């Protein structure tokens, strides 16, 4: 199973990491979309399991959660989805989700079962480094890499503690706020990347608000090891709900553009 480390070592440029809500707008279409994203050049996948109360997400991903749950998504199907993706291609997969779903499943069992299905890491949006003890050991025991978030308002000493707990990459939030595409990059992000790069060798992947090929290029130039694009891609799915079969090609087209831009950067 491919590790994050291998991907970051192989790449001479920033990794392209698209985010999808598993099962949006339905299981089969979602599978086709993610496969198309892989074919278009995704280096790593970030996948979300829909939750009823996603407090870290803006309206675009909230709506995707509602669509996925409305189409019958559940934990068992999410696991199945990951297995199917891994059967299609051995690409690292990070889960991004909310704590209650992991907690109710049983933290140890969740990590073990999802590691087995082909997951590389589980990032819990509403669990900070202060409570890392509840997940760190179970994750390592299951063979998962660990990923935690750093935000522009995280103090340097704390960022250092967080980096020490991250074995996969640091999920670097570019701005103060929730997920959602923004017209321009936050002016907080470049200083944050510089700060993190001076603290640690753990790869720094940047997400939240990233929505254009030129954003990805700017972040790569600022030193980011990976660029995570979520809401912009989920928005493309939303825009094609009337013709779901077009969604995979439309998503692939956008990912292709970002990939091209990153290659030329």
């Amino acid at each position, binding site marked *: 199973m491919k590790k994050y480390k291998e991907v970051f070592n192989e790449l001479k440029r920033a990794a392209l990491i698209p985010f999808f809500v598993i099962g949006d707008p339905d299981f089969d279409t979602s599978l086709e979309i993610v496969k198309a994203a892989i074919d278009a050049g995704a280096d790593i996948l970030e996948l979300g399991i829909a939750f009823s109360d996603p407090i870290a997400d803006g309206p675009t991903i909230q709506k995707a959660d509602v669509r996925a749950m409305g189409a019958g998504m559940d934990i068992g199907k999410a696991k199945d989805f990951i297995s199917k993706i891994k059967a299609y291609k051995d690409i690292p997969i990070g889960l991004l989700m909310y704590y209650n779903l992991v907690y109710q499943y049983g933290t140890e069992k969740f990590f073990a079962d999802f590691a087995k299905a082909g997951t590389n890491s589980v990032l819990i949006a509403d669990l900070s480094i202060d409570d890392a003890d509840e997940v760190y050991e179970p994750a390592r025991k299951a063979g998962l890499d660990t990923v935690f978030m750093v935000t522009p308002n995280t103090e340097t000493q704390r960022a250092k503690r967080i980096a020490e707990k991250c074995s996969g990459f640091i999920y670097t939030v570019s701005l*103060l706020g929730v997920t959602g595409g923004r017209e321009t990059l936050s002016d907080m992000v470049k200083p944050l990347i510089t700060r993190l790069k001076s603290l640690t060798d753990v790869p720094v992947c940047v997400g939240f608000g990233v929505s254009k090929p030129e954003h990805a290029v700017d972040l790569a130039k600022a030193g980011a090891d990976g660029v995570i694009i979520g809401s912009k891609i989920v928005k493309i799915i939303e825009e094609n709900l009337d013709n779901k079969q077009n969604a995979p090609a439309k998503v692939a087209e956008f990912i292709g553009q970002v990939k091209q831009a990153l290659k030329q950067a």
Partner: protein
Amino acid sequence: MKYDGRFGQFGGCYVPEVLIPALEEIEQAFYKYYKDENFVADLDALYREYAGRPTPLYYATRFSKLVGFKVYIKREDLLHGGAHKVNNCLGQGLLAKYMGKTKLIAETGAGQHGLATSMIGALLGMETKIFMGTVDIERQSVNVHKMKLCGAEVVPVEGGTATLKDAINEALRYWTANVTDTFYLFGTACGPHPYPTVVKYFQSCIGTEARAQCLEKIGKLPDIVTACVGGGSNAIGIFSAFYNDKDVKLVGVEPAGKGLDTGKHAAPLMAGSPGILHGTRMYLMQDEEGQILDTESISAGLDYPGVGPEHCLLKDSGRAEYVAVDDEAVLDIFDIFTKCEGILPALESSHALAWVYSQKGKLPADATVVVNLSGRGDKDVGIVEKHRPTRTKTQTNTD
């Protein structure tokens, strides 16, 4: 964080990283100021002269006669704004001011917390935004109007069931983008640390007063202290003074909505299981995978799938007992109590009164019960009329 904010296995601070610095700042400020001479003096003056503390402990003569034992009412309904919410809002609002914050945000269900925050926003000259579900805006329109009159902006929230839970989601989202200059004035003894501790502290005046008033007025402590429990701030405020009085029974009353067996309720302590939402581990109404369930209660202020972490511990330790009463019993008691005493109880507080009424014939004549009447029911008259149109009409005709 200096403390972990745990109440046994419950509580904690389960929030996205971006909110940690803001919560740390509140924790720090709270422990810096809560015993500070100037802060205590300022808050005390506001409690007395702005809010109207201390509130009386009133012996409900006719209602006592009706149920057959002694019922004392802690009159939080007499406070400025019409509910206990002002205690917490003055405390947190003053804290925000001492911290140099210029903007307040808050969530609200019934509108009482939104109103209290709006009042304090006006009082302290702070820009105020209130997040409120569109369903609650509809059913509590008078409070919405009052908030706007105080100069607050009321932000309608569409998501989910468009009630209190969704208002909290949206307030948290807004806060993540505005953490630097905005203070989130959380309304109940729930949410991430340090809120359960902070809110309990600012509400503990209810219990401290009630306990002293019992000793002075009755010459002894009561047998039972009871309060309604949604998030649980008024209950924790009155219970906490009696923790060490082992002979005083504490009874928290949750909303059974259409009935516990229908699933259409908001009683996580009675029918939920431990889970994590809005920054805390607590009893929660959820499905087997951990998705949060829709709740239902006639009282918007109790219509929430979780409950303060300290109540969860009080339940597990057995120090407090939790029960539930349904919407019908609440509507009945609203009518009965108002007829008896000429006091309109908020539908939230009516839950506690309904439980007291259910003890008719079960408690001895010398039993003494203190009920925290957390708010007044003026805001609920329209809802009661809607649910009991015939009765209201008939009574108007025969009165």
